[in-house]
């Protein structure tokens, strides 16, 4: 497991114990860039749920800055923080925590070329 992603997972485990999903996926074809996916039952686009969404982004952003020199080749270009009902989240939750995706895998019409599922409350 990539140490940078381990550290970000530690931050999420400490600050957002309600997290249902944390995944690091290489999903951009032909590019060595990464996407972080996060979901929890508390995430929404209004009120308290929206505040939590912004706080998760802030926490991940801080962790990304603190680990920038940690592991070369782990540039994160987006952090998708979504409610549990999003199809990409539902598909990602089919994988158990600890899964390392090494073969091209479909996820709501997307191809995941590589991925680490570090939190998955589906298991």
């Amino acid at each position, binding site marked *: 497991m990539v140490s940078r992603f381990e550290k970000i997972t530690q931050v999420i485990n400490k600050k957002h114990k309600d997290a249902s999903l944390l995944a690091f996926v290489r*999903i*951009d*074809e*032909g*590019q060595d*860039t990464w*996407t*972080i996916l996060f979901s929890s039952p508390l995430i929404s*686009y209004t009120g308290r749920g929206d505040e939590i*969404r*912004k706080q998760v*982004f*802030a926490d*991940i*952003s*801080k962790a*990304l*800055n603190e680990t*920038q020199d940690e592991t070369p080749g782990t540039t*994160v*270009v*987006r*952090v*998708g*923080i*979504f409610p549990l009902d*999003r*199809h*990409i989240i539902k598909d990602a939750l089919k994988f158990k925590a600890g899964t390392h995706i090494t073969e091209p895998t*479909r996820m*709501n*019409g*997307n191809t995941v070329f590589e991925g680490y599922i570090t939190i998955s409350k589906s298991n």
Partner: protein
Amino acid sequence: MLNHYTTTMREIAKQRMKTVEALINAHDYEGAAYIIGLTGEIALKAVISKRLNFSEYPPKTTTKNQQNYLRTHDHQELVVLAGLSGVFSPTANTPEALNWSEYTNQYRGDWISRLRYHDEGTGRSIVITDDEVKRLYEVLISDENSIIKYIQRKRLW
């Protein structure tokens, strides 16, 4: 003074913004999803045109070169050319960066093909619900910290 081409691209983007609103009002969410992606792409190309002072957008050619790079549909490549990759990076803890993350989670790479064609693996296209389309409209256009409002506020096009 802005060159004519940048102005044209900006006006096309503004027209497409109106098209998106009309499609959403008509509950044509599938059509709106497509035009939202197109609007973001044109907006970024307007920014690039201004930054590089194009009199016209470079035509597509048959060889891999700079011009083809500028013709890409890939928002992540366009944002680099527009000089905005730092602004919209998740390491920039801003509302605009959060909106960009949400927007490009849907409109990545060859997003047109993924929206248009069926997924060979599952036999279905990428699934976007009506609520997700409304949300994509917000992050690109209507939210106070939307991608296009950032471009307008900073006079980037």
